């Protein structure tokens, strides 16, 4: 009887751990896809790619960009006007900005596994904490609270899952064209608009 009780607790605990961890894996994996796709899509739009530069930059049909600093784990935003250490709530990523739309479209496929709405945070600028200085890049963070299913046996309720990605534009042809911003620390004006250099968005973090 004692052996059976001990074995039962151990096996049920193992099953709980495996299934909950597996579900969290699935969510985080999809969030990484969402953050990567959002950042790569957003890198082409103003202000990461300034309209004044001309092609390949494109306008943003919405202006939800947060010029701030990504801080904390799970990450949040620290806005410039805030006093040091303060972390005001970030404004939700508005529909209409490509990075937000693409990230959310990918993340929504696992929305049923979250117990709270999925949040998408976008930050941009040349001084983001995670990235090399001067590079004009975009950081996309996707996160949600996921509930434990079997873990509730162990009094666990939820866990915040998140993924982030940063991207910037560069030249496609790196053999004969200027080095990409991620490695040179430069911005888009350092690149070549002359064929066959071409343009491509690259993940840089």
């Amino acid at each position, binding site marked *: 009887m004692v052996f*059976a009780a001990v*074995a*039962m607790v151990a*096996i*049920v605990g*193992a*099953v709980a751990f*495996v*299934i909950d961890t*597996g579900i969290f*894996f*699935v969510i985080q*994996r*999809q969030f990484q*896809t969402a953050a*990567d*796709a959002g950042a*790569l*899509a957003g890198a*082409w739009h103003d202000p990461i790619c300034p309209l004044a530069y001309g092609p*390949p930059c*494109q306008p943003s049909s919405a202006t939800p960009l947060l010029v701030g600093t990504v801080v904390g784990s799970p990450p949040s935003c620290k806005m410039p006007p805030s006093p040091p250490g303060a972390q005001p709530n970030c404004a939700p990523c508005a529909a209409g900005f*490509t990075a937000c*739309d*693409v990230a*959310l*479209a*990918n993340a*929504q*496929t696992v929305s049923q596994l979250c117990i709270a709405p999925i949040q998408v945070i976008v930050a941009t600028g040349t001084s983001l904490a995670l990235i090399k200085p001067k590079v004009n890049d975009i950081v996309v963070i996707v996160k949600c609270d996921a509930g434990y299913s079997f873990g509730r046996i162990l009094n666990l309720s939820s866990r915040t899952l998140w993924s982030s990605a940063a991207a910037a534009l560069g030249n*496609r042809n790196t053999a004969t064209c200027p080095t990409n911003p991620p490695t040179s620390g430069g911005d888009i004006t350092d690149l070549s608009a002359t064929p*066959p250099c*071409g*343009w*491509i*968005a690259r993940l840089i973090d």
Partner: protein
Amino acid sequence: MRAKQPSQAVVEFGLIAILFTALMFATVDFGLLLNTWLSVSSATREIARSASVGKKDVTLLAEASKLNMPSVSTAGFSKFCCDEPTPTTSAVEVKVEYFLGTQGSPPPIPCPPWQAGCTAVPPGSIDKSYTAGDLGTTGTCNPGPTCRPQSDDVVRVTVTAYGAQIITPLLRPIFGCTNGSNPQCYVPLTSTATVRYEGAEF
């Protein structure tokens, strides 16, 4: 009161053992399916990125045919990947769809997949070199200003592994797998990635 008989413990153990075994089998199968799904997800990301940077149909098809997917069986299918017909005859299917972005002549109204009522660009408007739905099916229009895909379009790639299986015998009946129907016990696993089309390959 009668004393506890030795055979009672055997019967109780038998009942509990079935439950424990089922739980362990479920854990094993869940882990295997999760592993397969992760490879499906990776494949989706890779193909979506390739489609995003303008890789053409033949390149995507070659990429899909070389995918490494653990636990995906080709038994009962004509090949690993990628047949167009529905219902499928291959163990893995890849679908590439394009949605209207902002570029073009004349500029179209954007119709991305996350917008209600938007559908994929029909095969008749896809450049012959690119896919138009299931991988292996090229488009039909001649390259020109109205041909898709064009920069800022949206690409949606869906990979489905029809050949993923439940392998532990105790769980197969739960999924309706008997020797009569679905003898291989296939459980389709799907992953989707939506990305921005960055422009043609050169």
